[in-house]
């Protein structure tokens, strides 16, 4: 292995210059992973030192940011995940239809008025909490895709899983996020439409109540009720995606 010193001299490579632009993204993601600023800082530092040490393993021409994220994810799994996170059991039968309808009904001006926002009055903290409430694997794909803008292929690379798994997690993760956002919107009255929100599942109806300090941390993904709803992807993990079979090369190009 070439040492850090050698490639720095040989290639005139300045690690800090190359890696520092990603510190904000890394830190934000680390914070969502650890949910604590001290752990997040330690995680970023360890990631940096590993990246510095193993820079010769980085393949020129590939995405440096994705490479840093991959190191961070591996470090996180080794250091933090085992002790802190317990697996979340979720029933994936979706009741997507009803949620979609609620969003549509409550977002009547969105198309006419490009400046209007879904859940306009919702606070940033509520959105963050909603994302934090997702099970770890689903939170990660949503974060990497929607916040960090990685392609499916890059996410598959970072998380060491097939592209089909990324897609199925993204599908479910986004559905869960939509659902959680809606529950917040209903609970705290952020939905603007005066029309009462009709949910198909009675269990999901939440009575409006005053927000207690610190509340919301306990936001949970509600398990959908079994019913006559269409189950889109009942099987876990590997999501047989019909388009994938056609021509993977063409279907999943980066950029």
């Amino acid at each position, binding site marked *: 292995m070439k*040492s*850090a*010193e050698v490639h720095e001299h040989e290639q005139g490579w300045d*690690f*800090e210059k190359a890696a*520092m632009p990603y*510190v*904000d*993204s*890394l*830190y*934000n993601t680390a914070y969502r992973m650890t949910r604590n*600023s001290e752990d997040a*800082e330690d995680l*970023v*530092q360890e990631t*940096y*030192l590993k990246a*510095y*040490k193993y820079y010769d393993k980085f393949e020129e021409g590939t995405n440096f940011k994705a490479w840093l994220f991959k190191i961070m994810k591996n470090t996180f799994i080794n250091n933090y995940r085992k002790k802190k996170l317990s697996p979340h059991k979720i029933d994936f039968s979706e009741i*997507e239809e009803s949620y*979609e309808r609620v*969003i*549509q009904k409550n*977002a009547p001006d*969105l*198309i006419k008025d490009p400046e209007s*926002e*879904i*859940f306009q009055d*919702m606070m*940033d903290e509520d*959105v*963050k909490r909603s*994302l934090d409430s997702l099970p770890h694997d689903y939170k990660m794909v*949503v*974060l990497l*895709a*929607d*916040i960090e803008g990685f*392609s*499916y292929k890059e996410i598959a690379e970072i998380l060491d899983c097939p592209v089909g798994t990324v*897609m199925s997690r*993204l*599908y479910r993760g*986004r559905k869960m*996020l*939509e659902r959680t*956002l809606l529950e917040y919107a209903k609970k705290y009255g952020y939905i603007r439409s005066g029309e009462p929100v009709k949910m198909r599942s009675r269990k999901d109806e939440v009575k409006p109540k005053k927000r207690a300090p610190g509340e919301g941390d306990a936001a949970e993904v509600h398990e959908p009720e079994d019913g006559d709803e269409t189950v*889109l992807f009942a099987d876990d993990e590997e999501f047989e995606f019909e*388009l994938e079979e*056609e*021509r993977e090369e*063409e*279907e*999943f*190009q980066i950029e």
Partner: protein
Amino acid sequence: MICYDVKRVIYFFLDGQLGENKQKDFTSHLNLCGDCERRAAIQSRLRQFVKKRMHIDPAPEHLKRRLARAVRAFRAEWSASQ
């Protein structure tokens, strides 16, 4: 493409990850079907909303200094060991 397919792959379409032909099929469907067009518009707004509200905050300045120090210390340690 029918509405059912559109619902299944709407996220992947909006991410531009369906591949050229499917992306085109999808767009043609949207041009003909108001429901799906609306569905796609709302989904796209939702993505924007989440992205905007989850904006990336700057990392703390002390962390940046700490990282720079750590890399320098690591380099010095390495040089000394040679």
